[in-house]
């Protein structure tokens, strides 16, 4: 088992190297010269050259890359030119915000999509099946930023049900003492129910926006997987033995159908991590997505490189985790490997 994990890790290394190289090149190809930006509004060619030198941008590309790798080895992701703080500090302070939002959205999505998929599979071919398909597909057919703005308009502006889209917490609350960085968990740990309610309130709209976007793949996969399982021999046997529908569907079919769904969840999670840059922009969410987008527009290399690297590492770790989980849940996979 451990050997398996180690073997997987080894194959992952060339991928990470590839990511680092591509990101470095991509940021260097971006238009916009940070030196001019930071030389300020009254830049002269002289002052621009000075700033360029102080930023280390006048050296040849391979040398800059070598410097970057060296810093990386020491855990130094560089400094953000826009905020002036170390990129690592920015990422660690903002990552929990994005992770909490993405996980929350994923949970909501699962709570809706999985029952929907099961229902569609059990009632295959009926209008229930078609309705489920339409609902799931509709969520993913609109651009995610549009869904977000629409929800803000309806639920905050018109109905006043949702709190103002001011970010993770209303201005008059202080964040709970940091244990995990997830406000929901930390506020419960601190026993502060009012804070918990406030954090939850701020999470609902952006979470629902993300959830709508990921309904379709999860529902689709659940349905497909359930159908395959329901057509299998052991289910036929169970039915022949006279077990109730409920038992068949929930106890036998569902558990076996979940395996492919878990793999899809991994894919959906990493897909969401990329999509939430737009949601973060709409809801003023202080996550790494909005951080990376601002940096990209400002041709601020270090945060973009750091963001991409972090995402890549997370994606790889997640896939590894899912493979292990798969092995735990399904012994056949373990034996084969």
């Amino acid at each position, binding site marked *: 088992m451990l050997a398996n994990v180690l073997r997987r890790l080894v194959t992952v290394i060339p991928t990470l190297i590839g990511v680092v190289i591509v990101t470095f090149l991509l940021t260097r190809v971006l*238009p*916009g*010269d*940070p030196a*001019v*930006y*930071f*030389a*300020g*509004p*009254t*830049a*002269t*060619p002289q*002052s*621009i050259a*000075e*700033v360029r030198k102080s930023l280390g941008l006048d050296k040849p590309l391979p040398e800059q890359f070598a410097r970057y790798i060296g810093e990386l080895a020491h855990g130094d992701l560089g400094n953000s*030119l*826009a*905020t*002036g*703080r170390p990129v690592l500090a*920015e990422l660690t302070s903002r990552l929990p915000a994005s992770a909490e939002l993405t996980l929350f959205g994923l949970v909501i999505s699962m709570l809706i999509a999985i029952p929907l998929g099961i229902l569609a599979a059990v009632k295959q071919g009926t209008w229930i099946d078609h309705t489920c398909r339409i609902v799931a597909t509709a969520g993913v057919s609109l651009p995610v930023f549009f869904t977000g*703005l629409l929800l*803000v*308009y309806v639920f*905050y*502006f018109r109905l*006043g*049900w*949702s*709190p*103002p*889209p*001011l*970010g993770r917490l209303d*201005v*008059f609350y202080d964040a709970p003492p940091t244990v995990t960085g997830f406000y929901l968990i930390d506020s419960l740990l601190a026993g502060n*129910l*009012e804070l*918990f*309610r406030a954090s*939850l*309130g701020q999470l609902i709209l952006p979470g629902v926006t993300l959830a709508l976007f990921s309904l379709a793949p999860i529902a689709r996969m659940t349905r497909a997987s359930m159908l395959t399982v329901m057509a299998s021999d052991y289910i036929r046997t169970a039915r022949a033995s006279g077990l109730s529908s409920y038992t068949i569907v929930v106890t036998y079919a569902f558990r076996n159908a979940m395996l492919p769904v878990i793999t899809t969840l991994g894919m959906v999670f990493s897909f969401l991590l990329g999509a939430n840059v737009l949601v973060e*922009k*709409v*809801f*003023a969410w*202080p996550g790494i997505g*909005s*951080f990376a987008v*601002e940096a990209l*527009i*400002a*041709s*601020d290399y270090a945060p973009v490189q750091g963001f991409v690297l972090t995402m890549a590492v997370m994606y790889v770790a997640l896939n590894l985790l899912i493979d292990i989980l798969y092995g735990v849940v399904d012994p056949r996979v373990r034996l084969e490997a």
Partner: protein
Amino acid sequence: MKRREFLKSVTALTAASAVSAPAIWSPAKAQARKETLLLVSENGPNNLDIHGVGTNRPGYEASWNCYDRLIANDKKTLADGSVVYDRDKFHPELAEDMNAGDMSITFKLKKNAKFQDGTPVSAKDVKWSFDRAVSVGGFPTVQMKAGTLLKPEQFVAVDDATFRVDLIKKDRLTIPDLAVIVPGIYNSALLKKHATDKDPWALEYTKSNTAGSGAYRVTSWKPGVEVVYERFDGWVGGKMPELKKVIWRTIPSPGNRRALMERGDADLSFDLPAKDFSEMKKEAKIKLISNAITNGMYSVEMNVAHPPFNNEKVRQAVAYAIPYEKIVAAAMFGVANPLFGGKSNDVSTIKWPQPTGYAANMEQAKALMTESGAGAFNTTISFDLGDAVNCEPIAELIQESLARIGITTTINKIPGSNWRSEMAKKTMPLMVNFFSGWLDYPEYFFFWCYSGQNAIFNTPSYVNKDMDTLIDGARAAAAVGDWPKYDTDVKGFISKAYHDVPRVPLFQPYLNVAMQKNISGYCYWFHRQVDYRSLVKA
């Protein structure tokens, strides 16, 4: 306040039924809201110190409110009731007295002036701060140069309470330049502790910490999210501000900012787009204030160094082809001062900015194009993506009109950081751009935008000896108070600019602010940022 509490109770009821957690509303929080101002805008600071490298405009706001200057502009009330800064009158802020001699100005500092950490302010701090301003390079140093404040030798700490500025030459702009944000007074004792060999001016420290004597200090800064200010109760620079706490939140989406204001969840929304302003004004639910941006204009700029815009007739044809009225109506929703349709391109006053003699006249435009001999050609219209909300509709309308005189164009939106580089390269043929100068004098605008030094703001790359003679003449005349010569030269350079037309003025924009009805005390400043010190929340 009532409305917000009502809304909160409704939300609490709804939430309580969904999530069974007790919705407690602590009275302490309600009290805190009364003494705090929640301000929202699109961007936040990237540095709290205007002397820092690449500090953006929101960063100037932090410096303005947290640091003092020796003197400050007075305020005046306009006919429409709005309060603006007075360009010509000053009062002492950190100084208690100003004595302008022939080639020097002497200031006596206020005796009880203290920095926010308790250290008394001395003239040594003032000298250190001024030295810093002229030595850090970049924008601050250039701004000091505009008032002929060039070298540390000019700044003398006569004794602990007296500070003197020695002039290299007479310049009308020296005194106004002392009241801008750049020559703030920094706590040199504190900063010297944080200085290093590589960073002798402690720029790293002041990036995220305020070390001044101003009315507010920054107690918390989360870049890209919010800045929290608290009042410094030992401030001596003026009347003690009413607001104890100011929270400045960055909300990128303009629709969300508007929603927040209309629902009463934010106190002040700064720099509204013209559309939101004109619509909210009609609804009259909240207070809206609008001020014409002094010494500022949107214009269409043509690169005179490259054909075909080096041909004066082509430029004049463009000036007649632009659909001015449509632009003011559709792009700015009428919230702008037209700078077209004047009597003639030979101006008769020194008012700045003022209308040109051009107006939308397709026949005239076509005739000039034929006269120019340039024939039909293709070019690009560029503008700053960060200002797309205004520039994009303007560019689209211009594109349509230029097509009718044989100029086909593609629109090029350039992201913020890249815009500066492109301006520096001076290769963009046709641009829609905005410029405004802090010191509200025409010769200041022309110095940056039309003079032969070909600064980055001279986007048309317009270099002309006669123009330089007029600009220098005006500045010299102002320095010695020769007002008749000043008038002649100013009228001269404005008229020349309008005839040669490297840039076509479109309109003078407004700075729009929305606030709840219980907020008052807003004053428009030349730096176009918010001054918290005069705001009152009833």
